[in-house]
């Protein structure tokens, strides 16, 4: 029957998407690779091919190494939390309780609110004479420079990312929990298991693929963190909260260092590419019907 459509018909349907993806994905993708081996040090209008010079400069740049370290520290701060904590919240919320939907809505709310407003709200909590330091003073801890102390700035940013992500991953876990066969729980109850044992022996093993999925997608999105940093710290103090996307942004759009920004973009691209490939080919095959 598909001969019926004529040879050109499928392409007609695909044209707008292909054109847009070409202009805003594939050409920029290859341009990034091209720019990363181009030298602009003689001015923006006299580019020269320079081989791997930009990459060497990136590797020699102490700020980049610091930024790369920060990025992985950020992942370590955010990913385990966002993989584990929302699972407990989902188990807690997957009960027949009065008003359960209200809890879902309230816990999910930070997900839909613009990250800019979330970051501003936290900046206010983090103020030197702010409410968080007041809470600390209640337990006898002296005020913390949440966003002004090099030891705490990155952690403070990570708290915002983690806080905003809970609802999102909770819903992913909730969907998976609803698909656990009820008989398995019933079998557990017959064996006299309490609810903790029930979840350890049934829910968690059943959810392992989803746990893996959440860990990779939360890692991918943590790699791309930008707005929280832009709004709260601008990467400071002393680069202590600067991560890779923010540094690329700074190099590209503030210093107009196209070559180095692109070399760093390729590093980002490779890291995210590997994570995404693992994600798509291992955990999301169904979603894409591969």
């Amino acid at each position, binding site marked *: *029957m598909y001969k019926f459509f004529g040879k050109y018909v499928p392409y007609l349907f695909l044209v707008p998407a292909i054109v847009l993806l070409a202009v805003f994905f594939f050409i920029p993708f290859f341009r990034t690779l091209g720019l990363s081996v181009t030298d602009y040090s003689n001015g923006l209008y006299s580019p020269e091919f320079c081989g791997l010079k930009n990459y060497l400069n990136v590797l020699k740049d102490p700020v980049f190494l610091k930024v790369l370290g920060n990025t992985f520290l950020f992942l370590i701060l955010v990913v385990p939390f966002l993989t584990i904590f929302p699972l407990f919240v989902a188990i807690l919320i997957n009960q027949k309780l009065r008003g359960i939907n209200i809890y879902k809505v309230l816990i999910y709310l930070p997900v839909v609110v613009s990250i800019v407003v979330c970051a501003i709200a936290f900046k206010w909590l983090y*103020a030197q004479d702010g409410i968080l330091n007041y809470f600390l003073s209640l337990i006898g801890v002296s005020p913390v420079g949440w966003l002004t102390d090099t030891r705490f700035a990155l952690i403070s940013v990570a708290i915002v990312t983690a806080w905003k992500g809970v609802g999102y991953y909770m819903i992913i876990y909730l969907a998976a929990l609803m698909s656990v066969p009820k008989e398995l729980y019933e079998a557990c109850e017959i064996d006299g298991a309490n609810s903790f044992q029930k979840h350890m022996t049934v829910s968690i093993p059943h959810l392992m693929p989803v746990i893996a999925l959440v860990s990779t997608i939360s890692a991918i999105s943590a790699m791309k963190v930008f707005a929280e940093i832009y709004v709260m710290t601008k990467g400071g103090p002393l680069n202590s909260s600067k991560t890779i996307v923010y540094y690329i942004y700074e190099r590209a759009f503030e210093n107009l260092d196209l070559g180095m920004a692109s070399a760093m973009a390729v590093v980002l691209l490779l890291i995210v590419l590997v994570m995404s490939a693992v994600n798509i080919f291992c955990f999301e095959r169904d979603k894409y019907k591969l």
Partner: protein
Amino acid sequence: MKIKNILSHILLISLSILALFPFLWLISTSLKGGGENIFAYPPKFIPTDFTFENYVGVWGKVDFIRYFVNSFVVAGVTVILNLIFSSMAAYPLARMDFKGKKILFFAVLATIMIPFQAIMLPIYLIILKLNLTDSSGVINGYLGLILPFAVSAFGIFLMRQAFLTIPRELEEAAIVDGCNAFQIFTKVLLPMVKPTLAILAIFTFIGSWSEFLWPSIVLTDEKMFTLPVGINNLQGLFSSNWRYIAAGSIISIIPIIVFFLSLQRYFVSGKNEGAVKG
């Protein structure tokens, strides 16, 4: 059993408070008048010098209506283009055999794996070359904000999946009735995937509405600011006037809160997991 339920409620209430606390504290601050120290120790949650003055003041100094309109135009057009282009591209990928289908499929899949942040610089250079910035007019400025997000691999795959579930007999019947490919698409397939189109529309809207990185790169003219960019700008405008910054932030989230609450079943049912980007 009873005790377990009470314990669950206590935990869930605490979690809800943790989720809302930053916003509640902003609201509290935004309602405190000049006569009250917003840095008072111990902090007062209920304002003693209660006032709406900060809202009136910030509304008068910042053109929120314009930010709303800009965000609405950008998000609205982005949604419409995504619905059209994603479903159009998904149809042949789901239903037709043609040369290069496999390559195209994996090309689209590849765009999911390429982070926007890694290619944003060349995208910006292209936008400059096409004159799609706010310095060449309002329409161009909007297009520069919209076009890079006018089609998404996520949307194409979502629609493709929806088309795959429709029985082929329906198309065959339409062919017997003399429909061409375009008519089959608009009259037979699209009406059957309305729920999926709704999901795509809602999540594209939220994503576009809260996009921050791209508009903050391309926008230079304050008149073209979308909400997130405008709100971030409040920090500079009112440097340490936290009453105004708080009031402005709260004003800015009202539309999206209303949107979310009225469509909350789409978000928290768990049926569309992973639809919004994290």
